[in-house]
């Protein structure tokens, strides 16, 4: 039998339907791969017993012809998603051994459709980070290495475990979340496909909250088609999330392979940064050329407030985080560090439970919301956000179907290489992705090439609100032209 872990979801779906193998076999192959790849630190909790039980149940259903759209497909779940009776920590010490008595809406829809859970995936603590180095379980290692080097590289973040596990063939796809680039940046660093849906497309219920007006769940997979298959199960209206939008979920897979002829693709001049590596510049032009060859028309567009998106984000996101993370008080769940008074109990618990990056962001968020500073920082940032969104609206009003940009300003970097002295150095990773969250738009990162050191690079496509389908059509063009990239196995 060929290695089952190298199949795509679409291929596995056919194999399961034609009874070439069972979900239990497919699941076992992945469980073995996970065990052999513990040095990557992608999983923070393996759930083999549950995985096999789910696989057996779904095998019985497949035999009766009752399998759902994801029947028998083994997935990894970012540890930000609450999973019933399975420890969920957001990779923070402060959640300790939290075991949710409920299931997140997104994951419950995956199980409804027959998917199998292999375990929980590492991420930056509370999804705050761009390298997966802030996790209380330690950094995740990228399966990609520079040619001729053994240096451990980061997989990006915050969905670093998801990206690393999918790239290393440990799971067929993974759930992820994206607040400023946390799906698309790790996807670009690992040659996987990452989709950040329109705000409101997927329910946020049961996902540990970071910045509620920016957070969206989405898939990381190995192909555009696979990401479309996962999206259809993850998306949908949920009365339990008041920001989830009540519109039908299209058959995203049907958009894969659709012609992009005549589509107008915007190339935003503000994304051409000073000092941008020539390789990124080249990748971007290549991507444009591929879309043009497929019949799309390229148009230079202007998004004048682009440079203000990241600074505005670093007011809005920490402000919302400081409010969301107020719930971690050592009383109702998670870690508790005693104190003589309740105030001391709170302060001691939060000092011990939050890592450095989370503490920094909670403090800056507290500051920008505090009396006397609210107008100067928070209110101003929310006004700038309106301008950022307006830039995109103006662009789409001119008939632009989607916007093409690089996904990241560089390829993956080494563990411990960035952000040590100045936190802002790390934040700059999200410079191309964060605008999309600020404007609530959908975005997809698709592998498009490699740099001179053999590391993957990705392109990003930004779509109109709720028009993920166009992104899948365009993403497929990029994938067909660029090919797929798999890291040589060394672990």
């Amino acid at each position, binding site marked *: 039998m060929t290695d089952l872990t190298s199949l795509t979801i679409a291929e596995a779906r056919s194999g399961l339907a034609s009874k070439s193998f069972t979900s239990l076999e497919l699941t076992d192959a992945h469980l073995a791969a996970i065990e052999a790849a513990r040095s990557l630190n992608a999983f923070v909790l393996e759930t083999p017993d549950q995985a096999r039980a789910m696989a057996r149940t779904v095998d019985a259903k497949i035999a009766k012809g009752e399998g759902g759209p994801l029947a028998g497909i083994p997935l990894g779940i970012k540890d930000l998603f609450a999973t019933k009776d399975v420890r969920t920590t957001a990779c923070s010490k402060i959640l300790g051994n939290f075991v949710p008595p409920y299931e997140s809406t997104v994951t419950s829809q995956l199980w409804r459709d027959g998917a199998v859970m292999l375990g929980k995936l590492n991420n930056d603590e509370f999804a705050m980070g761009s390298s997966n180095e802030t996790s209380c379980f330690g950094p995740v290692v990228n399966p990609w290495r520079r040619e001729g080097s053994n240096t451990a590289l980061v997989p990006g973040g915050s969905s670093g475990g998801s990206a690393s596990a999918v790239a290393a063939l440990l799971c067929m796809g993974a759930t992820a979340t994206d607040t400023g680039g946390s799906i698309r940046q790790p996807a670009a660093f690992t040659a996987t496909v990452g989709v950040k849906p329109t705000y409101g497309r997927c329910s946020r219920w049961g996902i540990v909250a970071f910045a509620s*007006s920016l957070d969206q769940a989405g898939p990381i997979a190995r192909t555009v088609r696979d990401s479309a298959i996962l999206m259809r199960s993850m998306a949908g209206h949920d009365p339990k999330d*008041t920001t989830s939008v009540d519109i039908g979920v299209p058959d995203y897979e049907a958009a894969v392979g659709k012609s992009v002829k005549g589509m107008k693709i915007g190339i935003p001049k503000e994304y051409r940064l000073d000092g941008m590596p020539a390789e990124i510049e080249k990748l971007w032009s290549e991507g444009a050329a591929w879309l043009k060859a497929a019949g799309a028309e390229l148009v230079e567009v202007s998004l004048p407030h682009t440079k203000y998106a990241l600074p505005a984000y670093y*007011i809005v996101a920490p402000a919302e985080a400081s409010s969301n993370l107020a719930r971690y008080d050592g*009383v109702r769940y998670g870690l508790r560090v005693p104190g003589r008074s309740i105030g001391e109990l709170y302060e001691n618990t939060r000092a011990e439970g939050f890592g450095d990056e989370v503490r920094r962001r909670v403090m800056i968020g507290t*500051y920008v919301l505090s009396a006397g500073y609210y107008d100067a920082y928070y209110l101003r940032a929310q006004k*700038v956000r309106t301008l950022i969104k307006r830039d995109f609206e103006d662009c789409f009003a001119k008939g632009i179907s989607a916007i093409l940009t690089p996904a990241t300003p560089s390829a993956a970097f080494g563990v411990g290489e960035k952000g040590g002295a100045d*936190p802002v150095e790390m934040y700059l990773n999200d410079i191309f992705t964060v605008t999309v969250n600020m*404007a609530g738009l959908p975005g997809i990162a698709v592998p498009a090439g490699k740099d001179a050191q053999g590391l993957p690079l990705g392109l990003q496509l930004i779509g109109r609100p709720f028009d993920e389908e166009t992104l899948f059509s365009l993403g497929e063009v990029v994938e067909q032209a660029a090919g797929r990239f798999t890291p040589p196995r060394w672990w």
Partner: protein
Amino acid sequence: MSVDAATVRRIAHLARIAVTEAEVPHLQGELNAMLAFVEQLSEVNIDGVEPMTSVTPMEMKKRQDVVNDGEIPDDIVRNAPETQNHFFLVPKVVE
């Protein structure tokens, strides 16, 4: 704008995070690096611009004012560090 050591202590207290004296200078440097970074927003003309309140234009949904969940005290206290008879325990608040 930048923060001084006293402000760092005040923010830490507002955020209910214990900070030792030794940590203050380091935190001050980090917070000031972040504040210096966001300073560029002051050059944007925001005259007459409405602050964003909802990124997706939609009406605020309201659910029926009915009880649709509950009666699960065991689940609610299951993860709590200290409980007694379905109550959360905390240090004495009222003398």
